[in-house]
């Protein structure tokens, strides 16, 4: 009964913005409309009002943000950690690797890593260029 | 048997019963409750039946307050003013149904014969004439052997023969020691049958006493005249009548 009550309350009350898990294979990319299947490159944006947008690739998130031109309205910007498929990490603190050896869903060869060390390790293995969030966005813009 | 204690009732702004107190003992009596339309007769009856719930005051039947109770109605047979029954039931089904609901010994057979309803038993209630329906209504009210009988306009729609039969039945009820409360507009009936008259006006009991006292008080030749005078005098007669009724009760 108590559980039921809590469930009803949480249903009715307005929610504080929080990330939502991506249902791979079902969800549609908000930008390019493709089904999200890649657990290493998906991304998510959550507005301050709690609306969740999901993307199949980091480049889609970046293009969406650039089109809106207003990052302030977002409470969360998240990207998949390449080394931990399915895990979402903060987009602003992630390190990005652009490597021709690692294709990403929308053709930008852009992957994200939780730490710089991991990104460097992958760079050793695959080659490519490292970026921070601002740099990665710049890269996508100029592509 | 029935004790009404300072009962008031209003419907919205309309005060229908105003601080009514009286008692009725069971002693083989027929009490006519009279009064002009809207004087509170039906409300009083319905209060006793528990259909109308008084705002103030208490009603007891057979020694028990009735508020929130229902079983006491086993002691009451009631004849409602307007008789309408489920259209799709047959007469016999209705009789059986009420018996089934009350689960008390009932004797409708004689009454059916008496009112000549035998041939109507398998007709649907919706097809019956008003008079016949009233007869069915009477059967329902009289088929139980209850100490208390409440009849709201029992003569409505009845043919003369049926009225005679009704009178007989009422007489028998009195002989059996029942208490009969009835409302009617037909004064000769009151004169002929009633032992006592309760006259209601504007929600108050204006007069309560035997027929003789009624006629005597208003110096009238018959009940009709007495009532008419009672009504005419009601304005200045208030006090004395109150006194009278309080003395009587």
């Amino acid at each position, binding site marked *: 009964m108590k*559980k*039921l009550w809590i*469930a*009803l309350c*949480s*249903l*009715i009350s*307005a*929610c504080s913005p929080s990330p939502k898990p991506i*249902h791979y294979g*079902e*969800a*549609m990319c908000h930008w390019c409309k493709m089904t999200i299947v890649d657990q290493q490159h998906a991304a998510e944006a959550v*507005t301050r*009002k*709690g*609306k*969740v947008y999901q993307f199949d690739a980091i480049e889609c998130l970046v293009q969406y943000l650039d089109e809106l031109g207003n990052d302030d309205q977002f409470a969360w910007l998240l990207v998949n950690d390449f080394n931990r498929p399915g895990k979402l990490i903060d987009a602003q603190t992630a390190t990005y690797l652009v490597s021709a050896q690692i294709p990403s869903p929308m053709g930008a060869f852009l992957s994200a890593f939780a730490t710089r060390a991991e990104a460097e390790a992958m760079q050793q293995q695959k080659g490519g260029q490292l970026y921070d969030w601002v740099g990665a966005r710049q890269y996508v813009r100029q592509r | 048997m029935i004790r009404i204690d300072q009962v008031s*009732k209003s*419907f919205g702004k309309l005060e229908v019963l105003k601080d009514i107190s009286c008692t009725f003992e069971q002693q083989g009596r027929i009490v006519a409750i009279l009064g002009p339309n809207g004087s509170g007769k039906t409300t009083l009856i*319905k209060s006793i*039946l*528990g*259909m*109308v*719930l008084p705002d103030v005051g208490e009603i007891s039947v057979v020694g028990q307050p009735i508020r929130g109770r*229902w*079983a*006491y*109605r*086993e002691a*009451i047979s*009631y004849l*409602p003013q*307007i*008789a*309408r*029954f*489920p*259209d*799709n*039931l047959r007469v016999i*089904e209705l009789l059986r*149904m*009420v018996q*089934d*609901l*009350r689960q008390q010994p009932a004797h409708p057979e004689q009454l059916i014969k008496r009112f000549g309803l035998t041939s109507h038993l398998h007709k649907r209630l919706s097809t019956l004439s008003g008079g016949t329906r009233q007869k069915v209504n009477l059967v*329902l009210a009289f088929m139980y052997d209850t100490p208390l009988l*409440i009849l709201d306009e029992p003569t409505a729609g009845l043919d003369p023969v049926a009225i005679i039969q009704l009178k007989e039945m009422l007489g028998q009820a009195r002989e059996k020691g029942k208490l009969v409360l009835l409302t009617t507009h037909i004064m000769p009936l009151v004169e002929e049958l009633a032992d006592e008259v309760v006259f209601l006006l504007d929600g108050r009991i204006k007069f309560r006493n035997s027929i003789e006292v009624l006629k005597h008080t208003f110096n009238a030749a018959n009940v009709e005249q007495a009532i008419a005078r009672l009504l005419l005098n009601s304005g200045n007669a208030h006090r004395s009548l109150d006194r009278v009724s309080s003395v009587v009760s």
Partner: protein
Amino acid sequence: MIKILKYTLFDLLRSRSLLFYLAFYLAFTFGLFGLSADIQKVLISMMNVMLILVPLISTMLGVMYYYNSREFTELLLAQPIRRRDIFLGQFMGLSGSMAMALVVGVGLPFVWFGVGTSPFFVQFLILLGSGVVLTFIFCALAFFIALRNEDRIRGFGLAILVWLVFAIVYDGVFLLALALWSDYPLEKFALATSLLNPIDLSRILIMLQLDIAALMGFTGAVFKKFLGTALGSAVAVGVLVLWVLGPLAAIHAVAARKDF
């Protein structure tokens, strides 16, 4: 109560309006099958019709029944029977007989055309089940309205109003709210809002069982996920039950205080 129920049923099962109600469903459902042998299509069409008609007819017949049996109810009230039992019995009798008409009228054609062996049997059961529940809910609302209003015209008016609110106005306001707050995540709001209207809830319960649910996209998926859980279906059933019990409790409260 059982006896009142029995006699109310007995009376109603022979009433013309109920027979007409039954005949309509029979004719309509058979007619639909005549047009299309596709059980799912007929299910969807029937859903459309039932979600409009069941609440409408239930409120109308409910109010009508109450007013028509007013005098007889008085006779019953003068009998040694509990008040509550009279109204509960009448309510059960009315909604029970209407539900029966519905189940037979819609069920018979479906069974005739082989729903029992089709993959849509569960959907069919949910359709009938929600039809029955809606009958109960709107009969109860109708009884409540009639009890509260001695004036028949007013009673009928209110009954139509209640139907309008649940069947149309509610959805209109709902849509407006969705449009106004489209900046916010609305799935949960939508879920809660449609749970609160028994007609919407029934519609969604049936729709989620049909292919057409895919059209409902992400919001539909949220519904499906929620209602697919034990908690979700418990909430859905609970809400429907509350929609029956709530008006019943109100009937009970009003009847206990009412003068006849």
